[in-house]
């Protein structure tokens, strides 16, 4: 076993640190699934398994340093054969690749350099023990009796005499990313730039969790909140088919951003997403005839991103006795079956329009509709197929209740 420790030395008291911790852990997760935060500022990662991938430990370290560069954090690296010691070696900035060299370093390590609590350090000093080596030289029963089991166990773990149980870190189940901006955004180009970067991160998160994206919610916080109802700029993207295609997502975001108006400077962006593990990876089979079917959801997403979620719809018959209520906007995969086979016009007017009887030639009818007598909402009509003077065929009705008169309701196109 070989462990890598990272010790972050710059002051970590600001509120963004938990976010940054998550980010660092996600980066480290690329190298190993065995990693944990020993304390607030010390991360240890098991690197033995990934050393085959990187010819030497140096290559791995160079890679890691390169990925951590945008963080602009000061940190020290250290390696050791066990996780506890790796944490300490990171504090010291020392690399011990085998047990012998670790023993050597630990024996000479001053007590006040260890992460032991102040109280423990004081009691050790009072007994004249200033290095870990001096402590280790004492007989084991004395160590426990004089300094307590906790201190003894901690130091034994450092030496690798006792195993260290770690609870491995895992990426969070829900993607949540908050970007705080020092320089507020006023232009769409910059918003696009930040979201593009977030897309890349989102994609790597999805791949690691083996998830496919179904929806993204984005909230842009304005610098100075306005009135309560327009405090934030929020928008949502839903995908017709779960995917982790970054290019597609970027294209959709571009369309969405195009529709937005940035009223005031934005100083924070929050990105959340919904994802699913129920997805089928896209096949790039040369002989797959159904390839085009896979592109259809993408086309829908594309159109919805520009036109709005509700603009793309199908139409379905709906069982209702009044013809103006006998249909619903509904997604095409959810349409009802046809309930009856009465003759209906191809076009319906959104609302029946009053007309004059004397301009119409009645051709066929009447079809009487008499409903609503049971709930005091009576409706009594006679539907006719009629012809206008210009030759167009209309669907008209003569209403007796609740109002009197002739109305056009549809057109036979």
């Amino acid at each position, binding site marked *: 076993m070989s462990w890598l420790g990272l010790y972050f030395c710059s002051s970590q008291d600001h509120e963004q640190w938990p976010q940054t911790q998550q980010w660092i852990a996600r980066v480290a997760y690329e190298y190993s699934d065995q990693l944990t935060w020993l304390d607030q500022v010390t991360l240890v990662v098991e690197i033995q398994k990934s050393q085959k991938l990187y010819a030497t430990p140096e290559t791995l370290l160079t890679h890691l340093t390169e990925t951590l560069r945008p963080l602009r954090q000061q940190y020290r690296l250290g390696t050791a054969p066990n996780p506890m010691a790796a944490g300490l070696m990171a504090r010291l900035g020392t690399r011990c690749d085998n047990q012998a060299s670790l023993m050597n370093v630990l024996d000479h390590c001053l007590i006040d350099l260890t992460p032991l609590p102040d109280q423990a350090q004081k009691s050790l000093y009072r007994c004249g023990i200033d290095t870990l080596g001096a402590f280790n030289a004492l007989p084991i029963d004395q160590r426990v009796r004089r300094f307590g089991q906790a201190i003894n166990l901690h130091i034994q773990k450092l030496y690798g005499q006792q195993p260290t149980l770690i609870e491995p870190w895992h990426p969070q189940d829900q993607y949540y990313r908050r970007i705080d901006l020092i320089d507020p955004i006023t232009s769409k180009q910059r918003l696009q730039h930040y979201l593009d970067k977030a897309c890349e991160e989102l994609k790597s998160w999805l791949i690691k969790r083996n998830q496919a994206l179904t929806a993204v919610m984005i909230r842009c916080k304005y610098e100075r909140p306005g009135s309560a109802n327009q405090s934030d700029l929020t928008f949502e993207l839903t995908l017709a088919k779960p995917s982790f295609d970054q290019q597609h997502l970027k294209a959709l975001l571009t369309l969405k951003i195009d529709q937005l108006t940035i009223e005031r400077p934005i100083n924070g962006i929050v990105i959340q997403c919904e994802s699913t593990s129920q997805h089928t990876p896209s096949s790039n089979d040369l002989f797959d005839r159904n390839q*085009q079917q896979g592109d259809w959801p993408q086309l829908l997403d594309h159109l919805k991103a520009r036109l709005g979620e509700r603009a793309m719809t*199908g*139409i379905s018959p709906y069982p209702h006795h009044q013809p103006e209520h006998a249909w619903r906007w509904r997604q*095409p995969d959810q349409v009802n079956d046809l309930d009856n086979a009465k*003759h209906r016009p*191809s076009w*319906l007017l959104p609302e029946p329009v009053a007309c004059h009887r004397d301009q119409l030639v009645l051709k066929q009818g009447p079809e009487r509709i008499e409903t609503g007598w049971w709930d005091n909402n009576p409706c009594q009509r006679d539907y006719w197929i009629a012809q206008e003077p*210009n030759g167009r065929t209309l669907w008209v009705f003569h209403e007796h209740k609740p109002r009197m008169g002739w109305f056009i309701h549809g057109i036979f*196109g």
Partner: protein
Amino acid sequence: MEALQQLLNTRTDIWRGRVQPPTPTVSTGQSALDQRLPGHGWPCGQLIELQPIHVGCGELSITWPLLARQTQRGQPVMLISPPLIPCPQAWAQAGIDLTRLWIVRTQSHSLWTAEHALQSGLCGVVMVWSNNTRLTTTHLRRLQLACEYGHAPCFLIDSDVNRPVTTFSALRLTIAPGPTVTLTHTRRAQPLKSNTLKLTPRTLSAS
């Protein structure tokens, strides 16, 4: 030579001087109309302008058979900004599979939507209503170019009397109640003879 001719006829993208390769067509589903149209059907991957004198005076009765056939084959049909509400009962009775019928409810982006839907090459038929958009030659040209990406005929329905005279579409038909269909533009060099056809309900049902 015969074989070469046949091979060349399958390609529409090879320039062959004056010899115009025949545009592939699909039957309108009405033999009377088929006989009048160049190529005996709706041209595939081309723009077709329909100009009804009033909304609903026959533009659907001439296109329904094609829509029904395409939806039954599982190909999506897109209606972009129709002026009224398509009555689902009537459309289903005409044989149209409503699970393949997409309606785009937009006023300002209808031509953009049409262009994207056509460029994807995924739709069986695209029908666009221009409504109050004033069409220009550029609009028609862009739509025609988008049509060429796929196999779908695109119907552009507009009743604007001030429409541009020059057009890039394959066909332009005026529709009067009846429906009476008049072919006012084709890509043929010769002027059309007897270009008006009255489609009575009898001819429609007989086909």
